[in-house]
């Protein structure tokens, strides 16, 4: 390949790119301010560490088992309701499922000792109580996303009698499986000391680690590809994703340390030694129907890490679904919204 081209060609190419950039800037102004969260919702409970939201749907939904969505402490759940066309929440609500979401609050400095025990055994449990009051006599379906999937798995293992069905999306279970880059990076970090020194782990620090896994794609390619966006809707979605990516909450030191040390470094969940509030989390207690979704090319949660759930749970109705693409594609890709999410919602609607 020649290392040089005619200056005239290069000039023309640059001129064309500049024209595209100017058009893009004008279009960005026209698109205006983008918002995340397309589906109307009601605040049901405002607690110390979380808010519980309900997404009202059709009247018949009240007769169904409620679905509680548990999101990760990393990033915000707004990606689950990015826009009217790309809304995981809407996919379930529109198929008659009474849909609830736990939104974790940003921790304040005095929350440094809020641990996974609190998130899982107190906060999720409080939501389960509220749902039991609002839907008497009905079990609860749980849908956990990424780290929130690990939370959902733990809660379901500790309270199997409360759970109807369980869905996990891109959820790490065996933290050492699949040559996980995150595990390799975390392996020799002294998290005990790190969180003793930093009671709250800053979102910016964490974001820089995640973006640092794919810097060329996320810093360079992404913005050049943006030049070729020709319709306003795609541009608005791009800006929403951009806003979501860099708007992350901080994390409490205690929860971060537990997750990094006990789960990533020591892999306690699959070794059967992970404890919450003095109770061992036994994956063999997961007997409810389970659908485990992982992404084929997930650079954060390798497929074997998520698939490990299958070999550790005791469910007789366990199945895996593989989504093409990477970690985020499961929530936002067109293919996922066309096939995967409707299939999951239909599965939830089938009797147990």
């Amino acid at each position, binding site marked *: 390949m020649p290392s040089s081209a005619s200056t005239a060609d290069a000039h023309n190419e640059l001129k064309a790119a500049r024209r595209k950039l100017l058009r893009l800037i004008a279009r960005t102004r026209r698109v205006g301010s983008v918002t995340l969260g397309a589906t109307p919702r009601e605040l049901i409970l405002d607690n110390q560490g979380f808010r519980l939201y309900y997404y009202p749907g059709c009247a018949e939904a009240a007769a169904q088992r409620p679905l509680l969505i548990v999101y990760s402490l990393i990033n915000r759940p707004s990606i689950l309701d990015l826009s009217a066309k790309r809304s995981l929440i809407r996919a379930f609500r529109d198929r008659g499922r009474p849909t609830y979401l736990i939104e974790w609050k940003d921790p304040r400095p005095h929350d440094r000792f809020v641990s996974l025990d609190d998130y899982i055994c107190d906060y999720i449990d409080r939501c389960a109580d509220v749902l039991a009051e609002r839907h008497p006599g009905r079990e609860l379906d749980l849908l956990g996303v990424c780290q929130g999937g690990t939370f959902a798995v733990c809660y379901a293992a500790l309270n199997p009698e409360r759970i109807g069905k369980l869905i996990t999306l891109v959820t790490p279970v065996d933290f050492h499986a699949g040559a996980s880059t995150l595990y390799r990076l975390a392996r020799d970090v002294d998290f005990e000391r790190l969180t003793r*020194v*930093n009671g709250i782990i800053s979102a910016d620090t964490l974001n820089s680690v995640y973006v640092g896994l794919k810097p060329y794609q996320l810093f360079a390619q992404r913005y050049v590809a943006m030049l070729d966006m020709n319709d306003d809707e795609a541009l608005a979605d791009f800006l929403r994703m951009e806003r979501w990516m860099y708007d992350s909450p901080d994390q409490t030191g205690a929860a971060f340390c537990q997750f990094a040390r006990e789960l990533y470094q020591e892999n306690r969940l699959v070794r059967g030694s992970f404890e919450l509030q003095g109770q061992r989390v036994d994956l063999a207690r997961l007997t409810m129907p389970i659908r485990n979704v992982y992404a084929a090319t997930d650079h954060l949660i390798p497929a074997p890490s998520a698939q490990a759930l299958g070999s550790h749970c005791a469910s007789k109705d366990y199945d895996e679904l593989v989504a093409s693409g990477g970690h985020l594609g499961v929530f936002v890709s067109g293919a996922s919204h066309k096939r995967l999410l409707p299939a999951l919602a239909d599965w939830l609607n089938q009797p147990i």
Partner: protein
Amino acid sequence: MDDFSDRRDPADLLGHLPLQILEQGWRLFQQASSAGASGTADYAQALQSLGDQTRQLLEQLTAQHEQWHRALKGLLEAGDAFSGIPIDENATAAWPWLAPMASLFGADQLKQRRSGLEKLSAAAETLRDAQAHYLRLLEEMADESQQEVERLLQPDERRQPLTLERLYALWVSAGERAHERFLESQRYADAFSRLVNAHTAFAEALQGMFEQLAKTLDLPTRQDLLETQRELQELRRQMHRQDKEARRLELLEAEVAELRQALRALSQAEGLRTDAE
């Protein structure tokens, strides 16, 4: 509609750092395309310049660390020049208002502060080494990526003509590949954890010094604050357990009330039947 909404102008997003990097690359490619001596754009030269500028940035970071280290050493040397004032215990007993001076300038206190500074200086040195090691790896990574692009840019008439867009795509994919190779290596993981641990040790040494100062000034220390926060969290947990118990009792009470009512209704029905018989 909800908490997700934000009224910032999305055009502001274009001001992100990645676009600044792009702008730099753009400028270099523009120079290459307009200043080619033989009427051709020398992209290899532009890539070389981009690599040089990255190295300059890394050198600036290293220089910044050197400055911090020198400043800390200066503080230590200044401390050496003053070894503290011997405090006569009888004097402070007779004149209690001397006590604050003694707690600031007494030999024991200076010794403690010196020990804190020494720890901080050692931590700064470890951090500097870890940072330098990490930066060397980044440099190596950038070099590998550049070499790969240069290899792909070797003249070969059979291949497609080069466009800026293709060159950029080459640079991105070569860079990402080199980066991935490093990420997968144990060397990178070691350098990463060494850097994070060194940062932590430095911050801990700094906190230790402030802890000492707070004690000297009879202010609540960080440790005191942490104890309070720990107790606060324990109280919250207790409250949660009590709330849960209260809700359970409420439900039980409601259930008992319902059962009583059902029993009454049953008794009444039985009574009516007996009367009728």
